């Protein structure tokens, strides 16, 4: 089907739940190239939202705005608004260090520090100035349990984190983020480097964590989105093409491009 006009993005408003993030007219540039174009959307609290779309469509760039990780890329620049609680995340005066304590992130490749398992988990707390051993010990136990890693590591907390398997390393990174008791968890293809069993484990954990926090996950794996996400956002060439409840979006996409992508016509 050919249309001359660009189909309008279909964003189903989500009313019933409080939005955690309200994104308004977000544009993100790398130098002069626009990587995220005019995105306006709201993400609900205590739910899993999946960001999908072909490679290079701006999912990671978009995700990194929520904890201002794009600050680490010198040529990246954003305009628009991302409202979180009463703040605009894009405000240059915002305390990004405090922001990142509330909004945790998990990366594509497990990236534990070359230190002990214990030191990995307490890294964020120590940077936040927590010194009491009892507090740190307790946080280690709680967050490793949350990441379902406690039984495997309780006897080897002083061992190097690099001695863990890939799946265990990713759960350690999860525990490390959870130690700060974040309100939001951002995940950028967190299972793409893992085997199916480790992947299933992470998914299970996310479904559990969702009860307490908001989760936004970038994934290339459609089944994964279908399995765990309450809402799904489809990006194409920097634009948010379609956004709505996962089941509805997968079963009856409203935008032609979404349909094509889901049916594997490109990607």
């Amino acid at each position: 089907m050919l249309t001359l006009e660009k189909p309008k993005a279909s964003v189903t408003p989500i009313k019933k739940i409080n939005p955690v993030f309200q994104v308004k007219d977000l544009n993100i540039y790398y130098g002069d190239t626009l990587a995220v174009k005019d995105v306006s959307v709201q993400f609900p609290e205590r739910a899993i939202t999946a960001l999908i779309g072909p490679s290079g469509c701006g999912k990671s760039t978009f995700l990194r705005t929520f904890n201002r990780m794009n600050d680490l890329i010198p040529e990246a620049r954003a305009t628009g608004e991302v409202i979180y609680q009463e703040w605009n995340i894009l405000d240059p005066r915002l305390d990004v260090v405090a922001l990142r304590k509330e909004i945790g992130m998990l990366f594509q490749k497990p990236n534990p520090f070359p230190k002990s398992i214990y030191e990995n988990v307490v890294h964020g707390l120590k940077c936040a100035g927590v010194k009491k051993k009892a507090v740190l010990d307790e946080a280690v136990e709680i967050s490793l349990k949350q990441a379902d890693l406690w039984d495997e590591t309780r006897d080897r907390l002083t061992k190097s984190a690099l001695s863990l398997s890939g799946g265990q390393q990713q759960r350690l990174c999860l525990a490390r983020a959870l130690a700060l008791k974040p309100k939001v968890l951002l995940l950028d293809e967190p299972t793409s480097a893992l085997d199916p069993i480790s992947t299933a484990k992470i998914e299970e954990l996310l479904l559990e964590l969702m009860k307490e926090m908001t989760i936004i996950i970038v994934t290339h794996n459609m089944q994964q989105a279908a399995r765990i996400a309450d809402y799904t956002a489809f990006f194409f060439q920097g634009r948010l093409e379609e956004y709505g409840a996962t089941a509805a979006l997968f079963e009856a996409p409203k935008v032609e491009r979404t349909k094509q992508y889901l049916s594997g016509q490109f990607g």
Partner: protein
Amino acid sequence: MLKAKHVDRLMTGLMIGSAMIMAGILIFLLGIILLRGASHISLSFLTSNSSSFQAGGGIKNQLWNSFYLLVLTMVFTVPIGLLGGIYFAEYAKDNKWTSFLRSCVELLASLPSIIVGMFGMLLFVNVFGWGFSILSGALTLTIFNMPVMIQVSEAALRAIPNHQRHGSAALGATRWQTVKTVLLPAAFPALLTGMILSAGRVFGESAALIFTAGLTTPNLHFRQWHLFAMDSPFNPMRTAETLSVHIWAVNTVGIIPDAAQVAAGASAVLVLVILLFNLSARIIGRMIERGIKGN
């Protein structure tokens, strides 16, 4: 026409050849120096004062001076070099100012040591009036060694993948916290290796010291606890001929009858110490690496 396979074989042969030439030269050089010097190394050679006129002098004071100068130099160099390296690797923006600074460091690193020595003499010996002294020598060696230390530190930090920085930043760490608690520990093996290797360079340096630490050494008394006494081993204001300067001096301006033997013995000791530095750099670096990887 030469077939690609033959070219490949030829190039492989040339590479193996040049590697073997290098190894051959090294073994030959070490062999000669150690063989010629070994017969002259004895406990009394290592533990007696050098003599100015008669045969039979030792190298005790020169050996001490070399180590003392090395330690002082490293005390000055390591913090400055580390801070400079951290600045270039983690803080400096990619702009003209940074590339200007980086060119300065590179230029400084490539200056011949004799020039650095002349500069040290001008500044520390004459302008500051510290004379030929350990302090003048150590600061001159600092100028000589600091750019290398900066480059080593920068390279060690840059070798750490970015995902470590991102991981730490995402946990709310400030840049300095990331440097201190993630990057420096991760870079430690490389930093230590670089430090020990540059220590070898400092230990063997002579040209920069001839005009700054002097060609003579007082006979040191190791029970002299007055810091500023002339015969105190720790006095930073006294002259201090080092081992490699001694080798140069006995061969050129010395009048001792056994100059050749003393030079051979001292050379062998010098080479052994530097060899020791290099070996320990490798071994310690590997040990720490294994400790970090753990299992």
